[in-house]
């Protein structure tokens, strides 16, 4: 049989745009089991056949461990345990699978006895592990690839998959991109189980729902949907599941791919969904009705739906006094505007509206630009590109060289450019300030977006002055006002008249002001009508905690 037989034919790739998908409801995979592979290869009772099949399919890799045993002496039963050396916990397998098998297989047990069946082996041996039965080779392969061990017994047409995954992953460490001063230092990791444990530890509610999905035909990446079933609006959950179910790809590596595939506006400049590395952020947002998507292999979880106020959240906002956070939030908004528009406004003012600059400053600028041979807008573009190159190089520099080179490089470049008369000093200052301001934004995607916005604004400013910059800003504003993230208007939190919620979005409301029972705060109240009534499920009678947290 063909080696590639278990691979199912894939459909031709279409544009995976959330808005373009047909409305046919596709039931999303919701069971804990992996998607069943329609494999024609059934497990044969003859172990030699199984061995040769597996050898054909997987024998090209040397990291597959095959452990052959004979249970019960000369007349005993052949069995084989397969596992991937790097993925399975071999100690566990040895202790709980191989050793009991060998012990059990002492000849005294077997003299003249009937052939053992799976159930007996199972009852007798496997006391400490979870075991699944597999009927097709496809399931066996899935199990092997997930790090489990597979046990084939001669004469039995099923295989046993023993949960023994034990691959190494990164231990808990501080999130790299969302540092905080006094918050927790545990960030999500690449292992989805560890990430899930971080979330569960912080939200010990029975209403926390975790749904497993497998996305990617070849990569079989584990994706988890995390939400609180009584708070998250069911329509959003349904929509998310629908969109995830319609993803047809070979591999899924980054959570950014999911973000792109299920976003309402995948080609917009601004990120419509939020990505975070912090477990406490996910937990905090779940109580506001948001849904989190964890992806195995990347520590960034996707939080949706998102609004513009999420750009300005930083981990310190909740761990510091609220007035500090309020001030910092204002500063972040200002730094966003600075990063996008400072250079364009400067260029526009100097080249089109010098009457706005106070006279002494204007004289200084005039003198400093005296020797510069190029028009200001040209130099502004060049300097912006240089800054982007420096920033990019700073990411790639090896650590020992990194800090010193970047500091010296930027200082030297800046100073030398001024002294050589290539760039006017005012422009260098402005460009540098704008570059730094873009890093004050906590959300990296938003920072990138507004840094990119700087270029069309610069072009417009250089061609039409402040009117051009204003037109670009107007376009950006109108675009932000019209987009929606999963039905929630993107600027929903900035509309006036929302009381504490507006306070929360502009600044940070002190915890006393915020209602203890978090309501859904992402509704556009005038558009969505009253909230859908969620039928409360019967609480676990013995569980007082469940009764206390029952939501209406």
């Amino acid at each position: 049989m063909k080696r590639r037989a278990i691979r199912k034919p894939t459909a031709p790739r279409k544009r995976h745009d959330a808005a373009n998908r047909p409305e046919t409801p596709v039931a999303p995979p919701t069971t804990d089991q992996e998607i069943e592979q329609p494999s024609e290869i059934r497990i044969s009772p003859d172990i030699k056949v199984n061995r040769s099949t597996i050898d054909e399919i997987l024998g090209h890799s040397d990291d597959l461990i095959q452990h052959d045993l004979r249970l019960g002496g000369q007349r005993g039963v052949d069995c084989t345990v397969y596992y991937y050396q790097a993925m399975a916990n071999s100690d566990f397998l040895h202790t709980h699978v191989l050793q009991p098998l060998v012990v059990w297989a002492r000849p005294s047990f077997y003299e003249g006895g009937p052939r053992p069946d799976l159930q007996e082996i199972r009852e007798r041996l496997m006391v400490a592990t979870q075991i699944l039965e597999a009927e097709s080779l496809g399931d066996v392969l899935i199990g092997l690839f997930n790090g489990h061990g597979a046990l084939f017994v001669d004469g039995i047409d099923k295989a046993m998959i023993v949960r023994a995954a034990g691959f190494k992953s990164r231990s808990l460490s501080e999130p790299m991109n969302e540092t905080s001063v006094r918050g927790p230092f545990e960030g999500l990791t690449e292992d989805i189980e560890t990430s899930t444990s971080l979330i569960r530890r912080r939200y010990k509610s029975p209403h926390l729902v975790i749904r497993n999905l497998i996305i990617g035909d070849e990569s079989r990446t584990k994706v988890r949907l995390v939400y609180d079933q009584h708070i998250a609006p069911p329509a959003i959950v349904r929509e998310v599941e629908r969109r995830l179910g319609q993803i047809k790809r070979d591999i899924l590596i980054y959570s950014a791919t999911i973000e792109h595939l299920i976003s309402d506006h995948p080609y917009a400049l601004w990120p419509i969904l939020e990505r975070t590395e912090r477990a406490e952020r996910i937990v905090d947002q779940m109580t506001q009705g948001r849904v989190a998507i964890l992806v195995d292999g990347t520590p960034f979880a996707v939080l949706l739906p998102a609004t513009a106020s999420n750009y300005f959240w930083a981990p310190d906002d909740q761990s510091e006094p609220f007035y500090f956070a309020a001030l910092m939030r204002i500063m972040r908004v200002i730094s966003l505007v600075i990063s996008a528009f400072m250079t364009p406004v400067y260029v526009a003012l100097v080249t089109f509206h010098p009457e706005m600059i106070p006279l002494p400053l204007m004289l200084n600028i005039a003198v400093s630009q005296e020797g510069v041979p190029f028009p200001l807008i040209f130099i502004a573009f060049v300097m912006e590109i240089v800054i982007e190159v420096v920033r990019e190089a700073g990411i790639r520099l090896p650590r020992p060289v990194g800090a010193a080179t970047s500091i010296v490089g930027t200082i030297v470049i800046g100073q030398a450019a001024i002294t050589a008369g290539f760039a006017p000093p005012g422009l260098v200052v402005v460009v540098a300030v704008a570059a730094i301001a873009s890093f004050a934004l906590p959300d990296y995607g938003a920072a990138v977006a507004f840094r990119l916005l700087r270029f069309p604004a610069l072009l417009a400013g250089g061609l039409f002055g402040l009117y051009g910059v204003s037109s670009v800003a107007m376009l950006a504003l109108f675009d932000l006002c019209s987009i929606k993230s999963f039905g929630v208007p993107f600027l929903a939190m900035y509309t006036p008249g929302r009381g504490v919620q507006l306070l929360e979005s502009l600044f940070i409301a002190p915890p006393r002001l915020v209602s203890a029972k978090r309501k859904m705060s992402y509704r556009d109240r005038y558009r969505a009508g009253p909230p859908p009534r969620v039928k409360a499920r019967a609480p676990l009678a013995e569980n007082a905690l469940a009764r206390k947290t029952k939501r209406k």
Partner: protein
Amino acid sequence: MRSKRAPAALALLVVLAVTCAGCWDQREISDLAIIGALGLDVDLNGMPILGAEILNPAALARGVTEAGAAGESIVAWMMLEPMASYTQAFEQISRRLPRIPYLGHVNMVIFGRRAAEAGVGPWLDFLARTDIIRRSIYMSVCDTATGLLQRPYIEDIPSLTLDGLARTTGTNSMSRIVTLNEFLRRLAEPGIEPIAMHTVGRPTYDIYVAREGTRSVQAIGQDGEIKRPSGEDPRSEVDPPVDPRQNLQGSGLPQPEQTVFIGLSVFRGEQFVGAIDGLEARGFLWATGGITQTAIAVQHPGHPDGKVIMHSINSDCNYRPRLDETGLRMELRIKATFRVEETTLPLDLTDRDVIRYLEEAAAQVIMDEMQQTLDKVQLEYRSDIYGFGAEIHRRFPRHWRQIVDDWGELFPQLPVTMKAKATVRTGGLILRAAPPK
């Protein structure tokens, strides 16, 4: 799919339109000749002359480049051009300049005395119509406008000096800032006449008068001396300057070896009729509420040769027009608050009589000043710069409609009475002075 392409096409159209279009209004800042102030003069032949003071950034920028050479450096150029219109004059100026004249930073417009006497009306349209000149620039009349702009003092640039000086008129309230906006407002409204500032400076005899075929550029050095371009013949006088010292007797102001905003210019319509300087200007400002800070001197209560100087805290004046069988008359009520600033002989401020004396003396000083100015303005200049007409318009509109055309003749005959009330609020840190040993 169609709906996805439309915005892309829209965006592409925008980008194309923008990039193919080029940029028409862009100016490099180093291509600009920044004009700091404009002066209008009329030479002896009656030809109007425009003077534009062009700044030299290299000499004026502070510590930016190493290009600031020591020694002789030119801070500004004065370009004079006979003009039939502003636009034509600027065109001619720009032919002599390697840069584009830029009016965005014009700080003030100064009219020469003869130009102002001939009427400033024709020269205001450009200033109001063009967008680049703002309406809050200062307007002033000087004996020789273009000459004035050649005298730097304290600041490097003459127009910056004048700008600073204009803003410090508030410290002695012998003049005040008059903007182009206010001038135009007053000019347009029938019941009130325009005013401008009045400036004097060192008398200048060496204005280079442009003749046909020759133009002039004069360079002003940092020491204030004018460097004439070599090889050109010396000039003639524009007109003998009026010695302004006479108006300043007793005002305590220094004799103007340097430029000073000495008072206000009075216009009748668009023509300059005269100036009120020093204490006369203050008399006008008492009546119109333009006093910011000023000091008056009264005689010491106990000693005839002593003085008490009092500083005004605020002042307010109300016009009360009255119309009755005797006709129209105007009542002015001035209220002012003072603090005792300084005395030359001991003074006891706890004495109620002393305070009352000071108050009455202050009120008398105010009324004297106001009366002096009013007489001059009403009888000699016959121009209603106080705005009595506008007030009558407000209070008695129907009567005003009858007299509006004759207001020019009626104003000098308008009986005006005044009542001043001064209050002394504080006296600093000393209650009473110790008697001399």
